[in-house]
């Protein structure tokens, strides 16, 4: 399978990329690592006239310390994010989610920003980004703006990034010393999660002082399990307490029904995986 013909530019700066985007508008598609886009183009589900490749923009790569946050460049490959010491120390939840994202070859090529901008509700990074309270830095013709995680995911494959804008970096507020776990349920190797739960908790003296939980594939966007978070606050990190809190995991969700499982099955998974994820994160 071969994509329909397209023109191609590989700008070396964000300014040039924005200019190309302004020039071609709706006819253009941005390619990051291409691990989601290329299959779509090959199956001809999309046929842009122009493909703008961000792969030559060095400033979009890498992870840096920025005081109270770490900043991940949008074009940083998953494999680099997953082995980065700053991520491990301050955003362990992301490291856990990246560890089993797709497969090794895809992690070498796919990018942090590309996956988030693609906004597949079954993608592994949305729920951790929500749970961590990530901020998305988006560049446009009028300069840069920052979008809060709660406002970033709009709908199925749709984000707050405007058609004339590019995601440049993601700021992850430091949650140093928090326990973290990403619990993902799949039937076969390197599948998208049927449901997954991202949990990060701050435990003080055996008590869960604060918890932040994100759900993957329980609606048209990644979701925060706020009812679980509230139920957990101040509770002991015991199986019984966590089990009771995890019963709230489906509040506010609208899971899909498909060949991998119907909505009821997903609701069941969400409760079970939430309990497992919190217990693992707190241990």
């Amino acid at each position, binding site marked *: 399978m*071969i994509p329909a013909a397209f023109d191609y530019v*590989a700008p070396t700066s964000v300014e040039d990329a924005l200019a190309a985007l302004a020039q071609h508008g709706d006819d253009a598609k941005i390619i990051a690592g291409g*691990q989601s886009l290329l299959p779509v183009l090959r199956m001809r589900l999309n046929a842009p006239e122009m*493909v703008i490749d961000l*792969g030559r923009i060095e400033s979009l790569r890498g992870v840096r310390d920025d005081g109270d946050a770490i900043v991940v460049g949008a074009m940083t490959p998953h494999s680099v994010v997953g082995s980065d010491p700053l991520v491990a120390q301050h955003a362990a939840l992301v490291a856990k989610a990246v560890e089993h994202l797709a*497969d090794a070859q*895809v992690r070498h090529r796919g990018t942090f920003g590309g996956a988030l901008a693609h906004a597949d509700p079954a993608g592994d990074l949305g729920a951790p980004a929500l749970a961590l309270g990530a901020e998305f830095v988006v560049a446009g013709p009028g300069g840069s703006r920052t979008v809060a995680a709660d406002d970033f995911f709009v709908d199925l494959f749709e984000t707050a990034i405007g058609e004339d804008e590019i995601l440049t970096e993601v700021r992850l507020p430091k949650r140093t010393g928090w326990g973290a776990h990403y619990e993902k349920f799949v039937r076969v190797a*390197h599948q998208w999660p049927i449901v997954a739960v991202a949990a990060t908790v701050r435990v003080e003296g055996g008590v869960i002082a604060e918890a932040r939980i994100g759900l993957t594939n329980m609606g048209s966007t990644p979701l925060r399990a706020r009812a679980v978070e509230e139920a957990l606050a101040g509770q002991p990190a015991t199986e019984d307490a966590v089990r009771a809190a995890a019963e709230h995991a489906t509040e506010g969700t609208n899971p899909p029904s498909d060949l991998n499982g119907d909505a009821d099955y997903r609701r069941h998974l969400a409760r079970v995986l939430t309990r497992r994820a919190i217990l693992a994160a707190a241990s």
Partner: protein
Amino acid sequence: MTRISLTVDGAKVADDVEPRMLLVQYLRERLGKTGTVIGCDTSNCGACTVHLDGTSVKSCNVLAVQADGSEVTTIEGLAATTGNGELHPVQEAFRECHGLQCGFCTPGMIMQSVDLLKENPHPSEEEIRLGLEGNLCRCTGYHNIVRAVQHAAGAEA
């Protein structure tokens, strides 16, 4: 057409390609490197795995233009990287342990195994299976493939 220059299996090449040309197409159709095979054509099976600037990628899921300026190693150039005219130790281990049935997935399995051992020289059986999760063997011959990787790592069970 876009002009690309890259190094493939140690040789410098330059060509005009359509932007939509996939790296695997370029390797097979322009350079005749048919050792790299197309299995599923959906980026699932990993049969087309090559090394792009030293790390494994699925060459059906990379555009040739994205590889401009890069160094590519295919299964055909792997033995040459040893510099002694012999098979690469992972190739040798697949032969020794008969890590194949029909052989179609073998080029990708070997290229991914080399990458896996570079990152983790002494993997456990579970780490090998996880490291090869992006490579499918439709004959289901995984057992000897895992043994071959263990053999190459010098830790045959």
